[in-house]
């Protein structure tokens, strides 16, 4: 009986990505020197289940790769190997590589063999304790350079193993840096191999340092060799006899090259002792590429990284079983209530009215509970988003040579799944900004009397019906004067215009506004902040900046807790009904026209307990002409809070409170100013939901 395995693929990939995330966060929390075996165990478990799963599903490339990782992790776990920064970096690189592989497989693309082989070699180098490992720190740039080189002049790596029915040997030859100093010349070895049979060499150049760091007396290259012909393993080993101890190598018969089981494994636990070069002088490195006898162009698809990045979004969700159980409970209650009501209705007489009312009240309560637990299913802890940031901060801060700690607070705050998915990009952008522009270089920080290490705090908490996400850095803060002069220079603000602090900070959300003197590849092009704000607004949220020069910046994002349901107060304006979100209402007051004060003939204010608040006439702002116009002489003032500012909405009448299901206006229509969405009322008609902060902004203009 054969089972269609593909039905489990989705689950497998999800588990793998989860495992990778766990591995990544584990690697980032690893303390150098002081090893917490629990963390290593977690990483190990992640790797192990990926290996197992991919083996089961026949993704041998992944399984093989993970096997090497596992070996390394195993040694770390047993304490046989020290955890070094470079090893961790290589492992992190491997996590990325695995993720790439899995995504490729998931999207049914070809796995990028070049990059896989590159990571694999790096891993093997670390594993075999070569001193080279110390140098194979994976910075993005280097990776790119290496890739280009390997695309341009070298290397087809794994292909031949597939096509080979012939007899022969596959050799991975990775000399130590000081191989040349011992008087050994790889070219000589290759020549000898070539005499045995047809030799194909492939050189790995990813460990070659930049030109200025290049030491011509070191051998930074490693090779993948293939010899075709009827040769015994001993003959090959004889050739490499001379370099034993100065290199790591693996020899496998060609036919079995796909299998992970190595026939010979030459591991030297310690880096080779440096020998004094008393032998003939080494050849300069730059001559070598000429000796590569055969150059194959790789399949262009292999290097086409972008193409594999097509994101197929799986929209499944993992739900706590507790939540499901509660839900089932609730449904049970509803069914019971329903049958009870049915019983009442069967032989109805007026004396059962009390019973009926009780039943209806119960039904109402159960429906509300049911609704709540259904909404709960969509809630995910924000750690789904936050967990990616330690890596980001780690990578970027080391690239910028800054010392930065990321503190996460309130990771367990639950938010709607849609929010989790959409908030990631804006947050990445904001954190990059903080890293690049916010936190100063360590020297500058010390000079300013601050601790050398900068802190970025990522905080999430609930407030009212909102979730607030704050990004707090203790960096240099925003320079108001600089912002303002830049804005005037760019013609975004007129000179002599008096702006409040808040308005000045708002400037950075203007399209095309950037104060960075230097554009880096991390940020500073002046696109972005406006996109960030638009993204957040499209989620129904708002973004605020508080900053003090020299002290730091706090960026607060306010988002609605859920995007589906809202407690609303319906209000009448003319013949029309609008919904005001209950969370933003402070109070409501019956007023008459006389109680309003005109300001400069235009605006109106209302004095509420010694505070003058601006009044927005809904009739005017929404151009409502229907209804009884005399009614506009009196009405109800709804005092609302939008983004920290109080404001009054003048409406005709309050209608009632109800929970409304938010429907998107944009699905078939477009964004309307002052309106955040629509809902369907009990009578089937549509009512618009007011966007209070938007209204405040709209009315100011």
């Amino acid at each position: 009986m054969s089972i269609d395995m593909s039905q489990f693929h989705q689950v497998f990939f999800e588990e793998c990505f989860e495992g990778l995330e766990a591995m990544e966060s584990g690697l980032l929390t690893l303390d150098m020197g002081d090893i917490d075996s629990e963390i290593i165990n977690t990483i190990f478990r992640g790797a192990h289940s990926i290996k197992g799963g991919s083996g089961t599903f026949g993704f041998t490339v992944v399984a093989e790769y993970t096997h090497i990782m596992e070996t390394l992790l195993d040694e770390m776990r047993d304490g046989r190997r020290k955890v070094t920064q470079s090893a961790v970096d290589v492992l992190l690189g491997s996590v990325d590589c695995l993720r790439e592989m899995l995504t490729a497989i998931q999207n049914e693309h070809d796995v990028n063999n070049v990059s896989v082989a590159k990571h694999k070699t790096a891993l093997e180098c670390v594993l075999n304790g070569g001193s080279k490992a110390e140098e194979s720190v994976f910075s993005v740039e280097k990776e790119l350079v290496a890739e280009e080189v390997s695309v341009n002049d070298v290397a087809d790596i794994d292909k031949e193993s597939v096509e080979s029915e012939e007899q022969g040997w596959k050799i991975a030859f990775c000399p130590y840096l000081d191989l040349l100093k011992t008087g050994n010349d790889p070219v000589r070895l290759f020549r000898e191999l070539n005499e045995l049979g047809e030799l194909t060499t492939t050189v790995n150049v990813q460990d070659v340092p930049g030109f200025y760091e290049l030491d011509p007396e070191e051998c930074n290259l490693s090779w993948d060799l293939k010899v075709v012909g009827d040769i015994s393993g001993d003959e090959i080993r004889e050739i490499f006899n001379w370099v034993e101890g100065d290199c790591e190598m693996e020899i496998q018969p060609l036919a079995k090259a796909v299998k992970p089981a190595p026939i010979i494994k030459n591991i030297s636990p310690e880096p080779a002792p440096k020998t004094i070069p008393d032998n003939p002088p080494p050849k300069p490195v730059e001559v070598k590429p000429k000796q590569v006898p055969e150059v194959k162009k790789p399949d262009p698809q292999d290097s086409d990284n972008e193409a594999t990045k097509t994101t197929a979004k799986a929209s499944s969700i993992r739900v706590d079983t507790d939540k499901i159980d509660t839900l089932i409970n609730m449904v049970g209650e509803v069914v019971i209530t329903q049958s009870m009501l049915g019983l009442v209705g069967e032989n109805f007489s007026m004396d059962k009215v009390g019973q009926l009312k009780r039943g209806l009240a119960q039904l109402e309560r159960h429906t509300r509970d049911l609704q709540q637990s259904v909404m709960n299913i969509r809630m995910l802890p924000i750690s789904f988003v936050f967990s990616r940031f330690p890596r980001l901060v780690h990578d970027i801060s080391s690239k910028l040579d800054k010392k930065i700690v990321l503190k996460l607070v309130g990771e367990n705050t639950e938010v709607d799944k849609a929010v989790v998915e959409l908030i990631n990009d804006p947050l990445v952008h904001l954190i990059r900004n903080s890293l690049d522009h916010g936190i100063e270089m360590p020297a500058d920080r010390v000079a300013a009397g601050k601790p050398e290490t900068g802190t970025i705090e990522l905080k999430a908490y609930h407030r009212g019906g909102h979730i607030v996400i704050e990004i707090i850095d203790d960096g240099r803060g925003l320079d108001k004067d600089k912002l303002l002069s830049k804005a005037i220079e760019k013609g975004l603000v007129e000179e002599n215009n008096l702006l409040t602090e808040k308005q000045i900070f708002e400037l950075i959300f203007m399209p095309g506004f950037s104060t960075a003197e230097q554009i880096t590849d991390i940020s500073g092009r002046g696109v972005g902040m406006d996109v960030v704000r638009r993204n957040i607004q499209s989620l129904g949220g708002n973004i605020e900046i508080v900053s003090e020069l020299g002290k730091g910046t706090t960026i607060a994002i306010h988002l609605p807790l859920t995007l589906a349901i809202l407690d609303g107060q319906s209000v009448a304006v003319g013949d029309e009904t609008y919904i005001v979100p209950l969370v933003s209402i402070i109070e409501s007051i019956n007023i008459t026209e006389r109680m309003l004060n005109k300001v400069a003939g235009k605006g109106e204010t209302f004095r509420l307990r010694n505070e003058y608040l601006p009044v927005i006439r809904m009739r005017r702002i929404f151009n409502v002409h229907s209804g009884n116009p005399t009614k506009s002489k009196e009405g109800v003032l709804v005092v609302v809070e939008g983004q920290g500012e109080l404001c009054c909405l003048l409406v005709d009448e309050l209608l009632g409170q109800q929970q409304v299901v938010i429907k998107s206006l944009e699905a078939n229509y477009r964004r309307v100013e002052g309106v955040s969405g629509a809902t369907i009322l009990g009578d089937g008609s549509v009512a618009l939901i007011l966007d209070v902060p938007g209204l405040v902004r709209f009315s100011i203009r």
Partner: protein
Amino acid sequence: MAQEAENKDTDQYHYNKNLDNAVQYLSFALGKEEYGVDILRVQEIRSWEPVSRIPNVPCYEKGVVNLRGSIVPILDLRERFNLSKAEYTPLTVVVVLQTGDSNKTRIMGVVVDSVSDVISVDKTEIQNAPDFGTKVSNEFINGLVSVNERMVMLLDVDKLLKLEELDQDEN
């Protein structure tokens, strides 16, 4: 009885003959003019019902209605084409159309006076709309075709239902 069957056969014959080049359009009337839209874009035809007005939008965007749980905007084609206004009667019809590309479709309703017919048009018989030199709502017209001596203007649904600012918001 036999004659009826024969009629059916000839209908079928005509239909088959035109199948290769035929496109079907739903024709409707606005005043004395007759327009057509690609029938594959028509989701349903409904009678007019009161809409919820949207504040501060062009007057031809009448408002939104609840169409089985989704919020659907209603456009008045008379006002869109700057024709004289007509009173909405129980006979006024809303044609619900689909627009958009493969990754996002929108549903919108357009108010028309009445729906007339489903017409099969041979693609080769469609003429280009004459250029009036001005912007007389010509931009929405894909072509002209004559059916039983009447001229029917074929509308480009995507252009017709493209709302202003819509694309700005999406960028």
